[in-house]
């Protein structure tokens, strides 16, 4: 069985164990990346200026909990920088030969593999590094190079295979099933809110082509209904492409090669439909990958809009009518790292929430200084490390959630949502409901139909009977 050969805390595919001559292949990949991509400058400067001040450790949620040396961001980064200096700089080669004789070994690669998948690449440490060292970038690169020698978490590579070589999306949903699902959601909307909302497929020339995390079709129907409802009331021109409807891009987590292919597939679908813009659903990493469209495709690529931005703009224009009865329960907001760390999307969701909630409280810290949900960097998809994710990575987050006393924890990101649900389950926070922003918004949109009775049953298709009973009681 795989367990006898198990080297890492995550599963890799059987064939990964059979890769021979890994150090040489790792260095070949490194050389190719240095030549054809742009990591060289950062590696060079980072390895020169690294002051080993330890401020990154103080800002890392994992190190705060474990206190293990290997979890210090700077320590992890040094694993890669050391290889860079030894094999790709003259002074480093000479110095290492004279002083310690460092050579890259299989064991060293194993240590690196374990280390870089104990990091969510949330980049909080980057914001707190006086030298501006982007440890997230180094984790990103190290994972790519390791992928070239076969070390990829099985959960990630299997999903990518389904997306690029199988059905066409990471959840392996056939287009027919997608259409059925959306028809079901249309019926739900009509039943609960008495409104005829359309999920438009393959409409040519639409302004927005919609790419949610495809898992939302299975796990977060309320979010999608909220998305569709916003489009309905604002009269937005949008469509879902049946050839490609998946915004997920695990390439971000382990390979620029893969990332580029997936990004290009998104652009291909937008072009096929003669759409104008990419509209990304509530998903952090999908948004960040979509922002990388011009990186891989050049400046002529279609612009990217996150659904939060669209909804915010429409709400501010007064295009989204709201009921008088707003959300009563206490609500807090989790900033997904991929959209908030650089401060790109932080205020839009807050302004929406403040407009629809009576009791919105901030989690501390927040915005660019937020803590990762603990499942970033693709870790959330690796089920076998749940214990690590929810206890070690997620412990601080759980404390912060608890401190807000909120009933609803809004996380506009498919990965954050899955992770935070597990964090809450594993940290005695069963009362907290992790939810998408559009799920909440949907409950207070005034469709102008006879929906006065809908408030109590608004938890939607996902809620089970007990939920409905509970909500009815409040």
């Amino acid at each position, binding site marked *: 069985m795989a367990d006898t050969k198990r080297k890492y805390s995550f599963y890799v595919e059987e064939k990964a164990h059979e890769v021979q001559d890994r150090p040489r292949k790792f260095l070949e990949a490194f050389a*190719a990346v240095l030549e054809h991509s742009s990591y060289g*400058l950062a590696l060079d400067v980072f390895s020169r200026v690294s002051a080993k001040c*330890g401020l990154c450790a103080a800002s890392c949620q994992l190190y705060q909990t474990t206190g293990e040396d290997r979890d210090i961001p700077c320590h992890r980064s040094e694993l890669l920088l050391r290889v860079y200096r030894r094999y790709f700089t003259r002074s480093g080669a000479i110095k290492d030969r004279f002083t310690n004789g460092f050579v890259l070994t299989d064991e060293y690669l194993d240590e690196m593999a374990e280390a870089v998948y104990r990091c969510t690449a949330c980049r909080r440490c980057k914001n*707190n590094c006086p*030298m*501006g060292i982007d440890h997230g970038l180094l984790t990103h690169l190290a994972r790519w190079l390791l992928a070239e020698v076969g070390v990829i978490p099985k959960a990630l590579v299997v999903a990518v295979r389904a997306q*690029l070589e199988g059905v066409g999306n990471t959840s392996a949903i056939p287009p027919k099933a997608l259409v059925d699902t959306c028809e079901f959601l249309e019926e739900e909307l009509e039943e609960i809110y008495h409104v005829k909302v359309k999920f438009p497929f393959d409409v040519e020339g639409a302004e927005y082509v919609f790419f949610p995390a495809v898992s939302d079709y299975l796990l977060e129907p309320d979010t999608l209904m909220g998305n569709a409802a916003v489009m309905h009331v604002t009269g937005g021109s949008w469509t879902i492409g049946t050839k490609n409807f998946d915004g997920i891009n695990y390439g971000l987590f382990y390979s620029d090669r893969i990332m580029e292919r997936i990004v290009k597939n998104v652009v291909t679908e937008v072009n096929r439909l003669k759409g104008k813009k990419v509209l990304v659903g509530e998903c952090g990493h999908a948004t960040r990958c979509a922002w990388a469209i011009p990186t*891989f495709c050049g400046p002529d690529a279609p612009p990217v809009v996150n659904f939060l931005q669209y909804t915010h703009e429409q709400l501010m224009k007064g295009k989204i009518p709201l009921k008088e009865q707003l959300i009563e329960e206490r609500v807090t907001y989790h900033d997904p790292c991929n959209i908030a760390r650089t401060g790109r999307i932080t205020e839009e969701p807050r302004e929406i929430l403040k407009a629809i909630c009576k009791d919105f409280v901030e989690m501390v810290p927040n915005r660019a200084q937020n803590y990762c949900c603990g499942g970033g960097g693709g870790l959330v998809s690796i089920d076998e490390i749940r214990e690590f994710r929810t206890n070690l990575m997620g412990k601080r987050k759980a404390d912060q959630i608890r401190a807000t006393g909120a009933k609803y924890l809004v996380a506009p990101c498919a990965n954050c949502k899955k992770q935070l649900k597990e964090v809450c389950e594993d940290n005695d926070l069963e009362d907290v409901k992790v939810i998408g922003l559009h799920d909440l918004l949907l409950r207070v949109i005034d469709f102008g139909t006879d929906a006065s009775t809908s408030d109590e049953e608004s938890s939607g298709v996902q809620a089970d009977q007990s939920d409905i009973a509970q909500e009815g009681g409040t």
Partner: protein
Amino acid sequence: MEAWLEWARGPAFVFAFTFMVLGLVRHVVLTFAEMYRTMRRAGDKSLAYSKILVTTIKWLVPVGKIRNEVLYSVTSILFHIAILIVPVFLGGHIVLWARGLGLSWPGIPNEVADVLAIVAIVTAVALVVQRVSARPTRTLSRFQDYALPLLIAVPFVTGFLVMHPAMNPFSYEAVLLVHVMSANLIFVLMPITKLSHAAFMPSVQFVSELGWKWPADSGTRVAVALRKEEEPV
């Protein structure tokens, strides 16, 4: 001793100082050249210039960052202020520059320099003590991380003694020789150790951002280089 002192203040200083200036200028020039090349090759040529500039300034004047780690940050900031101001603005040093190159600029009173020198010495030692006593830094530290703060304290200790002969138990010339030579050593080490951050600091935030600015089709190009373009996932 006289001859040694002449050598230290003369050719040795000229060499060390020139080495430092050229070394740091080389870093700056090469970094900017590579930054330019990266942007020229980048698929996405947009860059949040003003935002990065603000971040750069915030880290160059890191007062707002103190709360992250109060003791360490305060120590570090005081250390930097002291070691940057004293060597440049000490009256005695300015006189030397005026004599050598005819350049002159306003200095600080010697009393202020005394205080700052003591601050530099105390904070240098404190930085090392903090480095040893905190687990993460103890793990991360290399030889240079301990040696450099202590080395930097040497010219301040000796400089203080030179300025206050009454407190100096050693020979004036010997102390002055150590003062000049330790400074010369620091100059030489500037470009080749982490002290080079003095030259990199204004660009690090840009470099950090440019790390993500890959060329268009870079993934495919790497795949081709590795002969993996046909390889299944």
